[in-house]
């Protein structure tokens, strides 16, 4: 950036051979990395999804067979797709707003707010896999803390083994971490809101709620965007926690887990796994494109 601007001021002739070499290296390395780490594997996945390959033998083209198989003949696929969307909805509609609520409460300076702030932030420093292990200590049927507290020894609830229940327990555990993350981001945003805005609103006779929704919240727009993006990313990349709990089976299926199940290991079904990866890519693209369109429109309206 700075090089080209400087070059622009002094005229294009100032590009020496050395400048060009530096530019070439500086631009070339990221482009190469981008091609090899992002585009290469992406395109390879798409190509491989139309083949059958076990990682050793020949690659055979099989057309759309993997996809047909996936949609009609793979019992884990639809639950996994549903869970991915549920994950997104839960984080977006429950955990994120809850994080905002906590941020607002702490920002208003409730008693012991520093204590709450650090307690709620604590899980953010843990890896999601570790959160998964902690969740098992709490929710395990025979030896878990929750059943011990409930004192339910006759017919203990199988929090992690019951496929109708376990996804919710894991969502709670994931939200535990996500909420703290969102809270800290909003706290930073709230600190930056100009106090005079609130005063002006108060003088105009706005209630607390009105002040928040009409005045404070709109000024948080940049934070909202970041939080939105983080929520989508967190939801789509969810993997480690379910893998730590039960390898993402029996009610905890996610697309990312199915990709891993099929591709990693001996005699891998690389073609089939790639087809699932492409579906995950499409789902992600759906959100990325929506986000970009929104952003570009937002920029224009401003």
């Amino acid at each position, binding site marked *: 950036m700075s090089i080209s601007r400087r070059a622009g001021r002094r005229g294009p002739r100032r590009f020496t051979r050395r400048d060009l070499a530096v530019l070439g290296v500086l631009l070339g390395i990221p482009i190469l990395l981008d091609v090899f780490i992002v585009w290469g594997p992406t395109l390879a996945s798409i190509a491989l999804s139309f083949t059958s390959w076990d990682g050793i033998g020949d690659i055979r083209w099989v057309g759309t067979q993997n996809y047909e198989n996936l949609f009609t003949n793979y019992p884990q696929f639809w639950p996994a797709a549903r869970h991915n969307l549920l994950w997104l909805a839960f984080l977006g509609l429950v955990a994120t707003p809850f994080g905002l609520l906590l941020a607002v409460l702490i920002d208003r300076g409730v008693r012991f707010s520093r204590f709450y702030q650090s307690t709620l932030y604590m899980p953010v420093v843990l890896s999601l896999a570790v959160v998964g292990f902690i969740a098992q200590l709490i929710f*395990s049927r025979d030896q878990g803390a929750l059943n011990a507290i409930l004192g339910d020894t006759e017919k203990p609830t199988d929090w992690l083994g019951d496929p109708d229940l376990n996804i919710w327990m894991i969502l709670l555990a994931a939200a535990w971490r996500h909420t703290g993350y969102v809270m800290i981001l909003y706290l930073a945003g709230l600190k930056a809101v100009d106090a005079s805005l609130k005063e002006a609103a108060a003088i105009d006779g706005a209630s607390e709620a009105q002040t928040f929704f009409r005045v404070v919240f709109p000024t948080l727009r940049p934070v909202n965007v970041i939080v939105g993006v983080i929520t989508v990313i967190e939801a789509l990349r969810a993997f480690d926690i379910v893998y730590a709990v039960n390898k993402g089976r029996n009610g905890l299926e996610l697309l990312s887990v199915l990709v891993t199940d099929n591709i990693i290991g*001996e005699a891998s079904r690389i073609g089939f796994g790639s087809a699932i990866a492409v579906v995950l890519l499409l789902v992600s693209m759906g959100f990325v494109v929506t986000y970009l369109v929104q952003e570009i429109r937002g920029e224009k309206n401003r």
Partner: protein
Amino acid sequence: MSRRNLLRGAAVGAGAITLPSLLAACGSGPGGDGKTITMGSNSSDPVPKKAFADAFAAYGKQSKDGRKVKVNTVDHNTFQENINRYLQGKPDDVLMWFAGYRMQFFAKKGLLHDISDNWGSYQGFSPALKAQSTGEDGKQYLTPYYYYPWAVFHRKSVFQEHGYTAPKTLDEYITLAKQMRKDKLVPIAFCDKDGWPAMGTFDYINMRTNGYEFHKNLMAGQEAWTDKRVKDVFDTWRSLLPYCQPGANGRTWQEAATSLQKKEAGMAVFGLPHPGAQFPKAEQADIDFFPFPVINPEHGQDAVEAPIDGFLLAKKSKNLNNKANMESAKDLLKWLATGEAEDIYLAGDPNNIAVSDQADISKYTPLQKKAVELVSGAKQISQFLDRDTRPDFSSTVMIPAIQTFINKPKDVDGLVNSIERQKKTIFATED
């Protein structure tokens, strides 16, 4: 460069970048001197790791030519997950792996060295062992080392206290289970959170009902899962489920073994090392087992499920192109095939039993001796469901299928139809 090669290159490159291949880094050894053999080990747990180290050290000591083993240990799961790339990349000369289908698969792909000439000199191995070490082409590829039979485990003290006797038939098994329930015990400890432990029960019910041949053919994809014989297996299993610990899909094998140890549960279908790992030292002598009961008298208790671990020679190992190295590697295998070599290992890891009948069983625990009896009396030895069939079938189809069955045992028809449909697509990719 053809398009196919280009594509494959791109894919392998992508795989190498996105999935850090830890194993590739371990492939390079000193090699050149013809006397140092590199060994790819998946024994990352401390007990077997130490026991293997003892065995390899003993090999170096007895070798008159100054041959020695250099071990590259990789975390067990990482080893499993990377085995494909490992065998195709720069593998060690010798590696640890499993008998049966999972060995045959790689043999068929040309990734292993034929060691039939070694087998000519091996002694003390039963025909069943040889069969499990043989590829589909009739040549041998594996040097077996130890195995661990599966059976129904229980505590002696619990059986004594209540006056139970080991059941011989399924009816007696159920009668015993009913009695245990009256005595406020969970009759059968049961777990499948890890996805594989319940496979042992499936295998046993299947082999007791339909025999070993059917098990083998079913696993090889040659029988239909919609066959009445498979449905019978699930029906029998359903009749046992009321006596099994509920919530199996949320319980690890460690937790199930613990409930056996705490005398909350009366019995459990396990492999030899499983209860051993969860029982404190003082209570080890209290572990006992009986063979899985008879269901169909025609097959009796002929088959025993006993996964075999052993050693393979990797074809892509560069060192093995060297004659001296190859000789050293085969010499190592020959030594590992002796009863003495197995004794050294088992002294450090008493949760398995030696495959060779020349091994010294005088130091075995009574439980190990009983296990030897069980295996040597077997007419057929099966591996485990996931070692007797294609790994992609067992992990992507059978694990979820059995977990579904545990959740909804009534819909057997829907289940076997779904298994059969998926099986067809997976086995259809066979070259």
